[in-house]
């Protein structure tokens, strides 16, 4: 009889220990995942993904890591060079202030568009928004972590 009780106690403790062993294994996976994420260069504030670019510069599918101030245009001094005949030399600027991205049109000839609506002056952006300058379409994405 005593043997049974000891066995049952063992089983009970084993079950609880197993529960925590599982949690331990999970936490190890989670920690590895978090460490890997922490090692990645995480300074970027957002990304621009090229959806459409008839001129071939930038390439479709390319992703740009964004600084707090990013200029776009045909000018070689622009942070991101857009080689498209409908894009002005200094077309637009993306700025990051107070955890929000803003798009500012720098007086371009053909205008800047967010999700199909033209931007006058400065407009706040959400991650996932689609931007269009001339024939170039880009999507603002959250920084990769």
């Amino acid at each position, binding site marked *: 009889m005593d043997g049974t009780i000891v066995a049952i106690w063992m089983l009970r403790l084993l079950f609880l220990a197993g529960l925590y062993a599982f949690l331990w294994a999970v936490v190890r996976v989670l920690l590895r995942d978090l460490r890997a994420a922490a090692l990645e260069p995480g300074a970027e504030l957002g990304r621009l993904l090229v959806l459409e670019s008839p001129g071939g510069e930038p390439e479709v599918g390319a992703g740009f890591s964004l600084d707090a101030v990013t200029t776009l245009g045909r000018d070689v001094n622009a942070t991101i060079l857009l080689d498209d005949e409908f894009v002005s030399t200094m077309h637009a600027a993306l700025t990051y202030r107070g955890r929000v991205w803003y798009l500012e049109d720098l007086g371009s000839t053909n205008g800047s568009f967010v999700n*199909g609506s033209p931007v006058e002056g400065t407009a706040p952006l959400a991650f996932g928004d689609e931007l269009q300058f001339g024939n170039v379409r880009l999507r603002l994405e959250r920084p990769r972590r």
Partner: protein
Amino acid sequence: MTGSQPTGVPRGAGLRLPRPRFRPRELGLLAIVATVLAVGSASLAATRALRGEADPAASAGFLADGSGLLSFIGGLLAAHVLLVLSGRRTDQVLLPTVGMLGGISLLLMERLPQSLAGGLGLGRTQLVWLLASVALVGVIGAVVRSDAWLRLYKYSWAAVGVGILLVTFVFGHDVNGQRLTLSVGPVSGQPSELIKILLVVFLAGYLSENRPLLIEESSRVGPLRLPPIPYLAPMIAMWAIALSIVVVQKDLGAALLFFAVFLLLLYIATARVSFVVIGIMALLLGGAFLYQLLPHVRVRVDIWLDPFATASGNGYQVVQALHAFARGGLLGTGLGGGLPTIGGVLPIPALHTDFPFAALGEELGLVGILGILGLYLVVIERGLRIAASAADDFRAILAAGLSLVIGVQAFIIAAGNLKLIPLTGITLPFISYGGSSLLASGVIVGLLIALSDRGRDLPAVAESGPGRVQRMPEHGAR
């Protein structure tokens, strides 16, 4: 150029089978789950043998051969294989965690009186729902690739949710004084389980669309910064819906859950503490008002303040739950060692739906329930992690919201069982008995796994569609 795709044709539209991608971590964790559950099953069987339980007839054979547990583990493996075949780089932790919770639920339901559920008996009915739930996790995690169908129709989803709510108001029937259950022919279910998913989808769509405006502009009232007035309307509507659920359905749990998830998502989207403070104040104000107005709210709060005043009346459930926790102590009485029945009825009324946490506290003790709470924390961590690495706001808020639904729901019912907050009758995700709850939780975890995909081309935002139309801008004269 080479990379360009014809728009309008979804990528991979052809029936190309993806290359399987093995998931060693998931398999390893599932192996631990299977081992632990086998030990639990043996512990349960041994305890029952010792107690010489002539046994709730049906379950004896069911348990002895362990077929229930085996088929559950088989279901988990099937879901694992499905995810491997889908070839996606998705989360490998959620399925085992859910499997552990479901397995514990199975062990608990097998030891309760089987007559609580007609037909197959409690344990087997729960097994069927658990298998269905795990199947949903696997299928949704493997198949759902685009979120456009959720994103584009957010107002339609919200309308469906409100519609279901109204239908339940009108046609639902009352169970235990709460109007929660809706029957269509032979099928009955609790629609609020579905509504909570629709709510998160709508909030993710709404908040991601208006996030910049919500952060940027604000109207000041004294020291408080309120959201801009036009954007307040949906929030006030949200508050009103939560309160009306309390009034009409008498469902405090769902109201609390909806409102808490709403506030959390609002905070996640805007990082404004003031919104949360205002929300909590509005909730307390509404709560105080309803306390004066509605007797069923008053009863709940009075029980919470002093259950022992009515220990054999209204407070019976809560008092019995506290006794169960006390009996459990640090290590518990062991699976199957809890108080089975008092005079043929459950020691705690509605134990299998509303008080599984108390039953687990009795059998596994403080150590055991802390472990179980840890499992829910893992779900939340994964959800927030998936949110942090999401490519856009919609996916981020959706992932955070889905995992918080599970986490907040577990917290509300666990805290209610422990008399930390007034008791509200909602289910403990993946553990409580009940089909609607298990299926809804399965959908949530399946979506989380689908959202965790980190493949290159997969987070495809709707490239064309009614919600986010992009037109070619009209070019200037030259």
